[in-house]
């Protein structure tokens, strides 16, 4: 009874907001460079990822307190949280893949986390989907951890941190998009990208390496988030 009630309450608020956010972001990411007649542009994966992280944070922000007020156990919070994170992650991953598809259709050259896998290599789109889901999952869980860390710090701090994070990320990525700066984007990140199996500096992608990394990170962050909720408290002041 309580798990359904909590799910329903949060789905109506957080999930609905997230759909709007992600769709809007995707439209802007694709639309802006096209408007400016860029041909090769990097897709703001990171912006979508931040949206998803924000969704994770919102789940904690909006969900934990009302759960406690209504006698919901932490165990139920974890279950409902997991059930809500799945559509959130799927939404983010779908956005990545959809942006990819739309841009290709238009005839432009998108550069994104999933680009190397969508064409060519046998089973490519499957890797694309897997990596997109794992990456979005990581960000969603990071958002949850962020939300837990923010608890007790007050509304103002939380709002400020969110605003700053978004602004910084938005400025960085926005600039890159407007300037169509895919080469610099790739050059700066060559070493880290190679390390985790993403294509860089002429070396082709090693999706299995990237997958392993993401799985490991997901497991670690997921465990931290699990423990975080298991110990969460409320209402001290």
């Amino acid at each position, binding site marked *: 009874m309580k798990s359904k009630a909590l799910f329903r309450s949060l789905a109506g608020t957080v999930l609905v907001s997230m759909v709007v956010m992600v769709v809007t972001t995707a439209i802007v990411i694709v639309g802006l460079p096209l408007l400016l007649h860029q041909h090769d542009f990097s897709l703001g994966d990171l912006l979508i990822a931040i949206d998803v992280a924000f969704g994770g944070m919102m789940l904690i922000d909006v969900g934990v307190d009302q759960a406690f007020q209504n006698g919901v156990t932490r165990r*139920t919070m974890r279950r409902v949280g997991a059930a809500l994170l799945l559509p959130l992650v799927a939404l983010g991953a779908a956005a990545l893949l959809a942006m990819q598809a739309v841009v290709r259709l238009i005839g432009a050259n998108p550069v994104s986390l999933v680009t190397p896998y969508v064409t060519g290599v046998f089973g490519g789109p499957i890797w694309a989907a897997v990596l997109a889901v794992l990456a979005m999952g990581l960000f969603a869980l990071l958002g949850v951890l962020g939300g837990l860390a923010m608890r007790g710090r007050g509304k103002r701090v939380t709002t400020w941190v969110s605003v700053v994070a978004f602004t910084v990320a938005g400025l960085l990525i926005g600039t890159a998009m407007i300037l169509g700066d895919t080469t610099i984007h790739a050059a700066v990140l060559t070493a880290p990208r190679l390390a985790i199996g993403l294509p860089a500096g002429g070396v082709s992608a090693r999706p299995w390496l990237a997958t392993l990394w993401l799985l490991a990170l997901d497991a670690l962050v997921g465990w931290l988030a699990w423990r975080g909720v298991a110990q969460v408290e409320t209402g001290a002041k």
Partner: protein
Amino acid sequence: MSEIKFKNVTKRYGNKQVLRGVNATWEAGKIYALLGRNGAGKSTLMRIVNNRTFATSGAVTLDGKSVVENEAAQNRIFLMSSAQLYPADRRLSWLFALTRRMYGGFDDALATHLLDAFELHDTAKIGQLSTGYQTIARLIIALCVPCDFVLLDEPVLGLDAPARELFYQELLATYAERPRTFVIATHLIEEVADLVENVNVLAGGEIVLAEDVATVLAKGRIVSGPAGLVTDYLRDTPVMRKQALGGMLTAYTLDAPLERPLPAGVTLAGMDLQRLFIELTRGERHEK
């Protein structure tokens, strides 16, 4: 009958030991006052019952089963405190509906009556209400949930006197109609003295008094008169405090020897619950 039982409950925050072994029982269908100085741990104790924080050691049970992470138990317990835990942008009507889905019931008729009595509309968004009205909104919810144990932590904080009186009347009205356990933690002792049946005093991290109010007041006395006579009258009787002025002595005791004849010149006055509490917890020190 159901009861909530505390067995050696302790709570430590870092270096601070807030609860040092609380033992108590809250029975079904009774109204309790939970009294304690600021920082005594009343809120902490209630939050432990409601699974909002964990005890460091000890057990809190409902019908013998631990309340920790126990949703069946938590479904029968409700805590109203000054913490505003509802989403701020939600209307009261939405909150009532949420509460109904969470607890499997909600007294809509009573809610309508209370909204009217307190002059509040259910279309109001809780975050936009003044502090006082937010409290009233939470109070209304607390009185309408189908829970057997309703804990109220400073329920009338910020309410003006007429609103407080209205609340006490409505509390008793719904209690008379559907008896359940209410535990009221409050500093306004005089105001609740008549409406509670039992009193628990939390001091020094423990429950130092757990008794029904009539019994406690029956033997609590302020004894005044010539020092020699008072001292003789109160021989062997534990005294909480003595006040000397010249040759006169005033003594505060919980256990006046009423069977002894009262010497002429010595007067006995009753102590109300607030005076009793002040004397009982005098000299208690709190590290902040």
